[in-house]
């Protein structure tokens, strides 16, 4: 029996995999995609999108609670978490259908099941019923993604020890919750669950929340979360966990030891790559710290096999995965794409307040041995922000003093995630401070704070 032969088979249909498949079809390749769960992967079904749907609910709740500040009378504003979750699931379902139709429109063969490499250029896809299909592929892209990292003694059970997945579809709403990990995922869920009335305690090993962000961002984020009533334990490790009643008692080791009780523990302490049961052991593919080792064009050690997205290592961001998908496929097609520049990948946290950044932090730039010019502008001095009642936060920019290159930009405040692309475009077009100063920003907008931050780096800020 002959089995189907494809130019490219992509394993995993997340934002890395499905974008790679579409780009491959655009370049004339006969393409198949393998998915063992839902089309769209974690991002669309259990990550980026459904969390944003929940956080939007939290925004509405917060606004209605604050309505009196805006002269609006709202008698009772209360959270209906099951309804919020239902909305979030509906949003994910809608997008999942969208991917299905994108695959159909592009003539991409969707193979449901688990894929395993079976020697040179062939793989076996086993569906839920256990039926196996052999497929031949000239090129294979591994886009299998990642999953939450387990912590010893805190094995997720979906009831009282959660991962992001349970937090998106909670069996019940706890009274008190400990979140382990103050990265983007931990902080977003802290924002949501705090907004709907849960007492939230965040425990983080690093000495600050959002440890990958600029230190000014971490500092202001911490003070904003604390002011809202979220308890933060930084530079703190969970030493032990014992059941207590229906919940848990955790021993924390920081500067001092302490003990906290919680109904639910949400583990958000990083991720591990999905590298198991793919048949990699029979190949030359190297794995380091659960991630597949690749070169700048996503090529693994095994000819004809590529890896993109979370499984290929940080930054663990959907847009990084998509970009790698495009680079990888164009490289396979013999085009000459440029490698991904990790200094130009923006990162966003959709907490309250939001955080958005791109490029080097001030400390990274200085550690790089560069002379830098740093500018900062607070939203409290921005007219639109005052009118919106959204004066928390600031914009910070870091320039290379010699060349005027925009090395990094860091923002905290309302909807800053929608503004960071301005700086990302500036970096991509290689604008210097001169072009950014010469650009005319519309008034009144919160984006004027971006302009002012640039001006302030050169001692020319106007409104402060």
């Amino acid at each position, binding site marked *: 029996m002959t089995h189907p032969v494809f130019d490219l088979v992509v394993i995993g249909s997340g934002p890395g995999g499905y974008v790679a498949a579409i780009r491959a079809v655009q370049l004339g390749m006969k393409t198949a995609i393998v998915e063992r769960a839902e089309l769209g992967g974690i991002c669309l079904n259990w990550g980026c999108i459904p969390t944003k749907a929940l956080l939007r609910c939290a925004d509405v709740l917060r606004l209605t609670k604050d309505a009196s500040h805006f002269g609006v009378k709202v008698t009772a504003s209360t959270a209906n978490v099951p309804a919020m979750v239902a909305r979030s699931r509906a949003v994910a379902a809608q997008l999942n259908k969208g991917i299905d139709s994108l695959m159909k429109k592009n003539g991409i063969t969707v193979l449901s099941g688990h894929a395993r490499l079976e020697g040179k250029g062939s793989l076996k896809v086993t569906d839920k019923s256990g039926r196996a299909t052999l497929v031949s592929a000239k090129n294979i892209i591994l886009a299998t993604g990642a999953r939450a990292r387990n912590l010893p003694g805190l094995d997720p059970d979906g009831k009282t020890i959660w991962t992001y997945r349970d937090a998106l579809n909670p069996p019940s709403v706890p009274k008190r919750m400990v979140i382990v990990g103050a990265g983007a995922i931990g902080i977003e869920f802290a924002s949501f669950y705090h907004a709907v009335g849960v007492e939230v305690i965040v425990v983080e090993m690093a000495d600050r929340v959002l440890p990958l962000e600029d230190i000014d961002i971490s500092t202001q984020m911490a003070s904003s979360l604390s002011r809202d009533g979220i308890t933060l334990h930084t530079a703190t490790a969970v030493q032990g966990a014992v059941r207590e009643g229906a919940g848990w008692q955790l021993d924390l080791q920081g500067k001092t030891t302490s003990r906290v009780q919680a109904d639910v523990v949400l583990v958000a302490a990083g991720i591990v790559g999905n590298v198991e049961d793919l048949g990699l052991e029979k190949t030359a593919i190297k794995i380091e710290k659960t991630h597949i080792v690749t070169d700048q064009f996503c090529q693994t050690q095994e000819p004809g096999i590529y890896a993109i997205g979370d499984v290929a290592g940080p930054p663990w961001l959907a847009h990084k995965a998509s970009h790698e998908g495009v680079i990888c496929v164009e490289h396979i097609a013999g085009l000459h794409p440029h490698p991904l520049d990790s200094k130009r990948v923006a990162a966003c946290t959709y907490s309250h307040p939001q955080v958005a950044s791109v490029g080097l932090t001030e400390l990274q730039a200085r550690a790089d041995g560069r002379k830098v010019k740093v500018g900062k502008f607070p939203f409290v001095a921005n007219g639109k922000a005052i009118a919106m009642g959204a004066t928390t936060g600031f914009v910070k920019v870091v320039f290379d003093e010699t060349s005027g290159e925009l090395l990094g930009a860091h923002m905290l405040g309302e909807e800053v995630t929608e503004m960071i692309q301005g700086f990302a475009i500036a970096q991509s077009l*290689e*604008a210097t401070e001169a*072009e950014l100063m010469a650009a005319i920003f519309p008034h009144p907008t919160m984006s004027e704070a971006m302009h002012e931050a640039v001006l302030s780096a050169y001692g020319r800020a106007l409104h402060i």
Partner: protein
Amino acid sequence: MATLICMPEVAANATQVTLQTWIKKEGEVVAVGDCLAEIETDKAIVEFIAERAGVMGPTLIQAGQEVEVGSPIGVLLDVGETSVNVSALLAKTGDNASVPQLPNPSTSETAAPPTLLSGSKVTPSHRVFVSPLARRLAKQRGIDLNTLIGTGPNGRIVKRDIEAGSAFAVSSPVMAQPSTVSPSTLGDYTEVPHSGMRRTIARRLTESKSTIPHFYLSVDCRMDRLMSLRSDINTAMPRKISVNDFIVRAVAVALREVPQANVGWTENAMRQYTQADIAVAVSTDFGLITPIVRAADRKSLSIISQEIADLAARARASQLRPDEYQGGSFSVSNLGMFGVSEFSAIINPPQAAILAVGMTQQVPVVEDGAVKIASVMRCTLSVDHRAIDGALAAQWLAAFKRLLENPLSMLI
């Protein structure tokens, strides 16, 4: 539509430059990457490479004429275009300054004589697409944007192109690009398009070998004393001096002793150099390049050694500035380290001579009627007969041999 060809900025801070030779004649087809003309600054002779295709139209200045950077120097026509109103073109530049008469106005169909602008800045006829950051970095580092090939969208020059330092107009993505023809129709080879550097080497050396009347003189130099001196120096000094460093120093001192050999041929005059700028051939991954040790006759051996090491390292990293490899009065090419016993080299115009250096080997020599083992190195001098006659070349070679064989004299 016809466009003006304007004098490019060929070297940092050079405002007045001389058009040395028009390579393209009126009516010749011009392809992108063709050399239009050779331009001379006080430091170097630089090729003016076409960035647009077309047909060479009337020239506005003659070979040998000095003009300001940015001045219009000729017209590039579109293919199929036969006539052009030069005055109208010039008027569009918005300048009607001084109007020197061209010696041969019949090259244009206009009634009014074409004008030559001087003392005015004119926008160059081509637009170089370059990011603001890349433009600034190029300025700070003295890199001529015209020597780069951009790798950004639509060939835009971006930061990485500056950092690649491709002063040779070579960039790996372009070099690596294989032919799009499917391999099966090609047989057993692939075609890699020429880099700007490869084209330059090919054109200049073809021109040199086919237009310069070369002749060759060979000499055997006894190296025993030099080897022993070098060994003494190297045990005492932290920095090792190579045989090649000695050779460059000896060439420079010999040129000072025999200044009539430190010359270059130009159509109208003999150019007498006042210092010995020695070009040293360096092989890189991109091809051959000859960075220059300026005024080597006035520099000590250790300085020369350091400079050569630095220039060679930066040449291999594509980080030379144009003024570091353009010009020079004399070249040295050494293949001794590859075990080559002797060879003859092609002159690197506008220079008039190049010394090809072979390996030092132990050979039996007859001295005072007895056979002895000696270290001998064979050098072959290629000479431009238009500039240097045989006897003069022999006189220079004798001076060089004497310096190598009495190496202490070149240290003084």
